[in-house]
């Protein structure tokens, strides 16, 4: 019997896994998809929120400020891209000042540092492309941007190095509580553990309610659509630009990404199906229209891709974190929607502490807190490039020309702990295929490298989950 099973390999599950790997415990993460970071964690704004949005006293408020504070040190320890670029909440009408002040007060109550309300001209002096219609803005210098993929993957890799086992492509079908332990049934068999941690994102209510024996949680999936623009317009703004909530609902943001693209979105639409990640014509045009309010000119001709994320909104509005009453050993990390990415490091620490206490676990003296990322040839200096190629000539072979990703980086991504097995896996770890041609040129080469390194036929290489194979066979097969 294992000590802990974590349901879900998203940013929350991976953070909990990494924090728990500090202890002498036998831990398994079960993930339905073919990689970690495949659900809500992969499709969001990539924002490290300052922490003024949530009502004081809520878990969201508390963990946001804490998560924000932890992010910088964690980025250093686990070597993932993070930048404190600051954020601005733009107010377009005099009548909005009251709400702006309310956000400010809320932020102060939550312990957000450095908040200030700026007048329109000051905002434009700080951020020249901001719309002339802006009358004032809330400036939060602690706001930041992070790579949601590499944050999640870095935590997963580090957890794996510290002994956590990851079982991917495995769907949990049922959970049974038996004699102070839990049996987790999957499509691949079953596993028993003393503790089950529910970090199942949009499906967290299903597992919670199954164990509770009644409907206690209800996750309402909320879809958000985004537009990603080319790096050549990535410096249009340097801050993350939010909008004041208006009668049209929560406004969309315009932000640089930590990799240098420009991102606009999301919409917010409640949907019945938590797996519905399709974009819609209405949604994308809505993002364009609303994002255009924030800046003088939104470079929509520079859009290189669009995507949809689904947020796991719990109907009561706050995160559900901790032990479930009456069911010892079952812990939730449910309803993790925005600012969940920001909170992930804090959620991991909080829940790992509770679980360790429950299991009376001891800390491992040999815990390895550091993880080194894949060298990024696009970013390193000429001399570093020289050195990398000298050590391993594969770093001289450029595979993705848009993002300057080399064969060396891709091979590294495949052979790491919890390594890439799919095109999307390679893409999220190295950015191969994430540029302006959107993998047109590099995908055949990445397929070839994946097949070679994994020792399989190229026809078995998938975009992500089973069924997403890239190739359907040989030519003339159908004749």
């Amino acid at each position: 019997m294992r000590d802990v099973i974590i349901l879900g390999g998203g940013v929350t599950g991976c953070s909990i896994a990494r924090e728990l790997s500090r202890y002498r415990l036998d831990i398994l993460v079960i993930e339905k998809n073919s990689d970690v970071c495949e659900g809500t964690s992969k499709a969001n704004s990539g924002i490290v929120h300052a922490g003024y949005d949530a009502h004081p006293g809520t878990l969201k408020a508390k963990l946001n400020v804490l998560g924000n504070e932890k992010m910088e040190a964690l980025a250093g320890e686990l070597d993932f891209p993070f930048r404190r670029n600051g954020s601005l909440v733009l107010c377009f009408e005099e009548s909005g000042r009251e709400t702006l002040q309310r956000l400010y007060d809320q932020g102060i109550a939550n312990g957000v540092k450095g908040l200030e309300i700026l007048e329109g001209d000051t905002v434009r002096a700080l951020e020249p492309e901001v719309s002339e219609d802006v009358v004032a803005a809330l400036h939060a210098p602690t706001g930041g941007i992070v790579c949601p993929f590499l944050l999640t993957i870095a935590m997963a890799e580090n957890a794996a190095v510290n002994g956590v086992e990851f079982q991917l492509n495995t769907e949990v079908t049922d959970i049974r509580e038996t004699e102070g332990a839990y049996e987790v049934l999957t499509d691949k068999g079953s596993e028993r553990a003393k503790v089950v941690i529910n970090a199942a994102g949009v499906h967290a209510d299903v597992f919670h309610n199954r164990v509770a024996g009644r409907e206690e949680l209800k996750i309402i999936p909320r879809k958000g659509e985004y537009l990603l623009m080319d790096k050549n317009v990535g410096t249009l703004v340097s801050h993350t630009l939010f909008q004041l909530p208006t009668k049209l609902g929560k406004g969309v943001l315009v932000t640089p990404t930590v990799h240098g693209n420009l991102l606009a979105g999301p919409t917010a639409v409640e949907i019945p199906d938590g797996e519905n990640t399709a974009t819609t014509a209405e949604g994308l045009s809505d993002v364009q229209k609303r994002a255009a309010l924030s800046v003088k000119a939104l470079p929509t001709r520079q859009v290189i891709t669009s995507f949809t994320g689904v947020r796991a909104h719990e109907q009561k509005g706050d995160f559900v974190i901790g032990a479930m009453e009456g069911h010892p050993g079952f812990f939730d990390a449910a309803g993790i929607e925005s600012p969940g990415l920001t909170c992930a490091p804090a959620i991991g620490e909080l829940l790992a502490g509770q679980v360790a206490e429950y299991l009376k676990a001891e800390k491992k003296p040999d815990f390895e807190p550091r993880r080194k990322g894949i060298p990024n040839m696009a970013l390193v200096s000429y001399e570093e490039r020289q050195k990398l190629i000298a050590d391993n000539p594969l770093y001289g072979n450029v595979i993705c020309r848009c993002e300057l990703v080399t064969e060396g980086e891709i091979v590294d991504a495949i052979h790491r702990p919890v390594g890439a097995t799919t095109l999307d896996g390679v893409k999220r770890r190295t950015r191969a295929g994430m540029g302006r041609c959107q993998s047109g040129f590099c995908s055949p080469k990445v397929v070839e490298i994946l097949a070679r390194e994994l020792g399989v036929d190229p026809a078995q290489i998938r975009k992500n989950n089973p069924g997403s194979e890239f190739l359907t066979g040989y030519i003339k097969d159908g004749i």
Partner: protein
Amino acid sequence: MTKDLVIIGGGPAGLAAAVAARKAGVQDLLILERDNRLGGILNQCIHNGFGLHTFKEELTGPEYAERFIRQAAELQIPYKLSTMVVDLRAEGPDRVVTAMSRKDGIYEIRAKSVVLAMGCRERSRGALNIPGYRPAGIYTAGTAQRYVNIEGRMPGRSVVILGSGDIGLIMARRMTLEGAKVQCVAELQPYSGGLKRNIAQCLNDFDIPLLLSHTVVDIKGKERVESVTIAEVDEHLKPIPGTETEYPCDTLLLSCGLLPENELSGKLGVPLSPITGGPLVNESFETGVSGVFACGNVLHVHDLVDYVSEEASAAGEQAAKYLTELSETSQNAGQDASAEKALRLRGQNGVRYTVPATIRPDHMADTQVIRFRVGANFRDATIRVSAGDQVLLSRKKNVLAPGEMEQLVLKKADLEQLPAGSEIVFEIAQ
């Protein structure tokens, strides 16, 4: 490393430029090619129809490339394969090329002149803003062409094609011949972006319907494409509700336009045309950065490789001339003070752009070919070229289409008499 001339790209443009430059006396030159063989995208274009103008015979893409590769070999033109140029910058008179390869590592080449011949890329699904899921099974036509013709693999079995660009039309036939079912080609515009001969030979001959004024409005399938929904569009190119038809299929190919790849040119500060996405060049195919020339699809997207070769040969010759002048005067030749006196060419009323964008009559040969594209279909139209009130040229055309590049020849004698800095307007007069 120093070089007189570095040619970035070993496709048809780079090869022709290199051959012409060598013939014009450039000894110290080097071609840098990112692929593992010369020939560029021609290597995957195994259909015939290449070379009718240049060689007066019908060749396949690889055969056409081979003619130039052989010439380059005979002229002992050096080249480096599997080599990516990752940076291009100006340092005084030097053009510094940073290149990288598995074999040679990373290194810099200080070049006196550079020919840009990097080609183009295909517009992707994201740039087209097509809504729906993002499953496997959505490929640009060129990527699918590579899978089929280079790797011998099928990217799908049941295919819908969006966009009637030439590669899309070619792939409609190719996929059919390899055993796939191509259901239709949908084209947003009321006209095709491809050559007439390709519509006849690749669609009509195989009973593949071409749906003009249609676009993809939805893609279904979480892991792999399961269906594509196509709707008719109105005159503003907006889908008309109620006209949707869902096509069950496993593959969507995109052939929705090509974009010159000028990221390197941008790093060097080469001014680009907002219309073509390619560098603005003068009659010598020299860009706004002296000693830097451009040709082929990196300059503007061509339909026929023959014209690429012709244009690239001229660019190579001009690079050679630039180097000769440079050694004679031991100072910067090229776009000197005469640039300001250059005649400026502009398209209007249906003519989208011209290549070149400027002409210095004192630098031009006796005649100059001007290439351009129109923005819509025209019948029985006249192309008029004028400078102020003076009509320089007027040509009747039965048919003009956006998918077919047009050309006219201007005479030095006509241009010499124009005041310096005059504007020459190309337009359609019906």
